[in-house]
């Protein structure tokens, strides 16, 4: 297997999981993940191993897809996933994960993004700050607030 093939194998799950947390949809996440690696290879070549850049490309692909869908009237005002995951996707999303994705979908877009990146565990707070164009101090505050909000939403969902 080529070096890039190995890089792809090592990182595809990480990027896919990040995109599932962002979209709440496994099939859509797979499509965007594929586009991410296509763009990464096409624009930066086989030798590039910049992980923050890979996440940046994934984020851009996600935003492009949401813009495209919004234009076509497939999503509403918020660029996030639908709060409920449809029956077909229930088949593939792990049952214990469904309620977390529904709660994630109820977060503000920037909160969902911060938690999705933090949960990846691949970027430091300073790298997340650079990616999202906010200060590192802001990342510290917002990540914790988003975690508390997610916990509240999950508790409300349990009732």
């Amino acid at each position, binding site marked *: 297997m080529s070096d890039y093939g190995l890089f792809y194998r090592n990182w595809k799950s990480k990027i896919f999981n990040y995109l*599932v947390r962002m979209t709440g949809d496994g099939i859509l996440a*797979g499509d965007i993940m*594929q586009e991410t690696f296509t763009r990464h*290879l096409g624009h930066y070549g086989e030798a590039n191993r910049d992980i923050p850049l890979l996440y940046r490309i994934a984020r851009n692909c996600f935003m492009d897809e949401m813009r495209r869908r919004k234009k076509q009237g497939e999503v509403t005002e918020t660029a996030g996933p639908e709060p409920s995951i449809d029956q077909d996707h229930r088949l593939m999303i792990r049952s214990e994960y469904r309620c977390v994705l529904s709660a994630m979908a109820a977060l503000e877009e920037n909160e969902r993004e911060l938690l999705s990146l933090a949960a990846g565990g691949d970027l430091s*707070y300073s790298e997340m700050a650079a990616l999202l164009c906010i200060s590192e101090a802001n990342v510290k505050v917002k990540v914790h607030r988003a975690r508390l909000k997610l916990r509240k939403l999950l508790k409300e969902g349990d009732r």
Partner: protein
Amino acid sequence: MNHQNISLFIDDELTLDEKIEFVEEIHGSIPLKDEAVELLRQEKILRSDPVKRISEKVLKVTPLRVLRFLRPIGLAATVAAAAVLIFFFFPFAPQKTPETPYRFVFYRPDVSRVEITGSFTGWNAVPMRRVGDSGYWEHTFNLPQGEYRFAYLLNSDERLPDPTIQTREGDDFGSENSVLSIGGRAT
């Protein structure tokens, strides 16, 4: 104590000295300890693998999968019969299902030929185009909303499902196909 330290601890943003201080602080406060444990448990779920493969057993109890056994000859006969019925009952109102361009991309730099075969090609092998020297192969189909099964053929010999699509099912010949849903719900 600054409660943000719980998140800094979860995300490994504390130095070792700060971690010692953090552990000592939560040791002296039950509410703080409880909050930290709750957030750690929540994070454990969030960081777990979100998807699982669909087992054949699950697929077989889904009514939609009956169509699988109709392909390719049975499906063609069904489509032909449906076309005749539609022609007789709705001769002046042909309804065209909107189609969306869908690009299939497959990375295999080490093969000389890649074809795609699936429910949307009538299970015929359609050659894919090599994208320069990138190792990628691509082909775009215009597909109406629905659920499709497909696989790639490498060098007209090896058959592989799409590695980027987690949903798969076995066919009746011992191979595995990727399951792709286009548009909202599968039809």
